[in-house]
């Protein structure tokens, strides 16, 4: 590991919809563990959130995406139990063909992907994204969602100075059975608190560094009290712990909570100061990472925590699919998987084509040129990421094509627009669903930008692609 290799940029994604504790309290007549939780929409999952956080980091670094040589992703909620998830994220980001690493099955994976990226050569991107599910009664009252991304390269702003681990055979704190989407806890309070504190503090105590130089810590945080309970065994005051605690505002986002906590801790860390991240996963194992700031790196987590719109409790349940999930059978107008797969560069990254004869832009770049009607080999180019609505409608509840029935039941009516994107020389139009907005609000003339989402699922395979969100 070179001495100056480190984090050069970070990225963050938190779903826009938030469930407030008052809403849960009204529904359950009990006070939930967190004051607010981020609710992923029906078209969001660990993959889409990973893409958004990673894109945020890449844009902040202003790095050529093709230069990224390593990509690591960690999540406890891969959309499928078996099948690689990294290639889809890599394609959506346009990363070229980096070496891949993925980690799952434990909330400790944030540390695994950070280490993988820190120890790689060349630009390496680590993303942690999670959207846990659980029964509404218990953990379900605090589950959240989010993603954090860390881009490592030479001349890092934040350098990883030390790593320490601590593990023991201590099961049952948090687990998910095969073929279940629901995280469980046995809630044996003292056993859980003792195990967590012992392993996390044990790992942190094993780090080689001056505890007095530590400005902020981001600790395992399934609930807001746990980081403070862990810190009782450590020489850190409450403020140092609060710097890296976000669970009270985004909910328990599984592996992503401490990773987003680390972004928050880094926001507080000045040059020469250090930050500690203490990851933990039931089983149990803990990993502690010691970072030193050579330059400040600010992602503005506090401001992002304050964004978002509140949703009602029934809306949150519907959005997460707790209510009213449905199986949709195949039928007419079926788009086969191979024909979908052929157009992935268009669906993920708006790769259009330019006619070598007349210079017209074509999207999708296939068939005869829309300008000169000649059959040509289009020269690929990426469309700009801002477009304008030129026509728009709202597909009301019950009116969606069958591929979108489940999404509509969960997410409600949606707007569908024709978006015009202006290129250097002309413009192209494409149809796009609008997301992240009240569907009745977008109007002709509004600006929109693409965002990576689940489009629909057919025959067990989720098709991803771009929707558009108001700027």
């Amino acid at each position, binding site marked *: 590991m070179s001495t100056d290799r480190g984090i050069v940029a970070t990225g963050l994604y938190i779903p826009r919809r938030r469930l407030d504790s008052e809403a849960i309290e009204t529904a359950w007549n009990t006070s939930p563990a967190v004051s607010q939780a981020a609710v992923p929409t029906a078209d969001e999952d660990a993959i889409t959130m990973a893409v958004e956080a990673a894109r945020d980091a890449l844009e902040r670094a202003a790095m050529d995406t093709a230069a990224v040589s390593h990509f690591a992703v960690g999540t406890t909620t891969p959309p499928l139990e078996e099948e690689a998830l990294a290639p889809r994220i890599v394609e959506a980001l346009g990363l070229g063909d980096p070496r891949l690493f993925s980690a799952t099955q434990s909330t400790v994976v944030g540390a695994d992907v950070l280490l993988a990226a820190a120890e790689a050569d060349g630009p390496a991107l680590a993303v942690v994204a999670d959207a846990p599910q659980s029964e509404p009664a218990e953990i379900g009252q605090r589950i959240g969602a989010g993603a954090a991304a860390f881009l490592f390269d030479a001349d890092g702003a934040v350098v990883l100075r030390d790593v320490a681990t601590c593990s023991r055979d201590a099961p049952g704190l948090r687990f998910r059975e095969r073929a279940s989407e629901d995280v469980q806890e046995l809630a044996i309070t003292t056993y859980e608190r003792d195990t967590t504190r012992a392993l996390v503090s044990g790992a942190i105590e094993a780090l080689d560094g001056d505890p007095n130089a530590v400005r902020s810590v981001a600790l395992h945080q399934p609930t807001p009290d746990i980081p403070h309970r862990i810190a009782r065994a450590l020489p850190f005051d409450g403020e140092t712990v609060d710097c890296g605690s976000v669970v009270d505002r985004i909910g328990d986002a599984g592996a992503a909570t401490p990773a987003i906590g680390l972004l928050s801790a880094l926001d507080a860390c000045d040059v020469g100061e250090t930050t500690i991240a203490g990851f933990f996963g039931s089983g149990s194992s803990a990993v502690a990472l010691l970072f030193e700031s050579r330059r400040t790196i600010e992602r503005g987590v506090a401001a992002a925590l304050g964004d978002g719109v509140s949703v009602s409790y029934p809306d949150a349940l519907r959005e997460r699919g707790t209510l009213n999930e449905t199986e*949709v*059978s*195949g*039928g*007419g*107008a079926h*788009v086969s998987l191979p*024909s*979908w797969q052929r*157009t992935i560069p268009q669906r993920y990254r708006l790769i259009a084509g330019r006619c070598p004869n007349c210079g017209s832009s074509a999207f*999708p770049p296939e068939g005869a040129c*829309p300008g000169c009607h000649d059959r040509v080999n289009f020269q690929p180019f990426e469309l700009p990421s801002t477009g304008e609505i*030129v*026509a*728009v*409608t*709202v*597909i*009301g509840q019950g*009116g*969606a*094509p*069958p*591929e*979108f*029935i489940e*999404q509509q039941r969960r997410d409600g009516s*949606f707007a*569908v*627009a*024709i978006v015009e994107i202006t290129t250097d020389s002309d413009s192209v*139009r*494409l*149809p*796009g*669903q609008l997301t992240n907005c009240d569907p*009745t609000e977008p109007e*002709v*003339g509004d600006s929109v930008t693409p965002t990576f989402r689940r*489009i*629909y699922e057919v025959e067990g395979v989720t*098709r991803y*692609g771009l929707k558009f969100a108001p700027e």
Partner: protein
Amino acid sequence: MPDAYVIGAGQSDFGSFPGESYRSLFDAAFDEAVDSVDTDFDTEQIDEAFLGTLGVGGRQLGLSGPAVTEHLGLHGLPTTRVENACAASGYALRHAVTAVRAGMADIALAGGYEVMTDMSSDHTKWWLGVSGETEWERLSGTTFAGVYAQMASAYLREFEATVEDLSRVAVKNHQNGAKNPHAQLGFECTLEDAMNAPEVAAPLNLYHCCPTTDGASAVLIANEAVARELTDTQIRVAGAGAASGRIGLFQRDSLTSIPASKSAAERAYEEAGIDPDDLDFAEVHDCFAIAELLAYEDLGLCDRGDAARLLREGATEADGDLPVNTSGGLKSKGHPIGATGTGQVVEAFAQLRGEAHVPVENARVGLTHNVGGSGGGVTVHVFEREDGGAT
């Protein structure tokens, strides 16, 4: 080039008929068409049949054309099924006209059939979306109503037109359809009804959308000699225009006109040697209210952006200068996809013979305009009564 003539036209009732099959519906249309011919003739004289259907609703049946003609007893008749979505039978008519003009057939049968109302709502949604651009447009989550609603959103922004104008289309067409015994929604509605209906796809509400329909229609096309032998009044196919366009709205240059309609109309007018001013009536493809306004402009019935004014002034009402959709249109009469194009000819034939339920006085020249999907395929036919006007 020899001329082609309409010697007979008929349709089944349009509506929801769970007790009928596509074959039995076509039987009814065919019988009415044969009965409408002035002189009895042997149906074995029919040389060729072209029948339009999207796919018999969502069934995607093969050989439904021969199934229909064999069921009728037209044993052995060469039958071709034509698929061009909602313009299927407009194109079937075009083929029949072509066959007669080419001299391959003395009498050709054109028609269409569709059964749309007997499947589960989920199943219906699957196949109703097959006639648009399926890989991008539909996968943005839109529907047919959605695509026309997008056109409406752009049109209402670009031109002097309002949602109330869309509702006026419904009021006018229902007023006509209420008098058509074959109409599916044969009742009148008020502007208030048509303004306060549930929203389907903003800005379109239920009254801005045609229904789904079971039904069939049939038209008999013959050469001049046969027409003179079998009919008292000759109705000539004076112009047959057709054109294709990109099937996705996003792929087309204009969001507020249908280029294929324009091209098809220009070709039909040129062949007929007429201007839009010469028309006495028109049956246009009003699958959604906005489509009727676009049709006024694309067919040259008014200037660009002037459709709402034309409508408000009453020019296209039954007693106006140029009545449009005296049959009730797709809105009130119904829209059994494959049967719609030749269904329009049933009205044109009746008007030119002075037999329409909403008669246009002294009608001599009429037009039918049939659009597939949101504009991927269009036919326009001009029909002319040869003796100078209905009496």
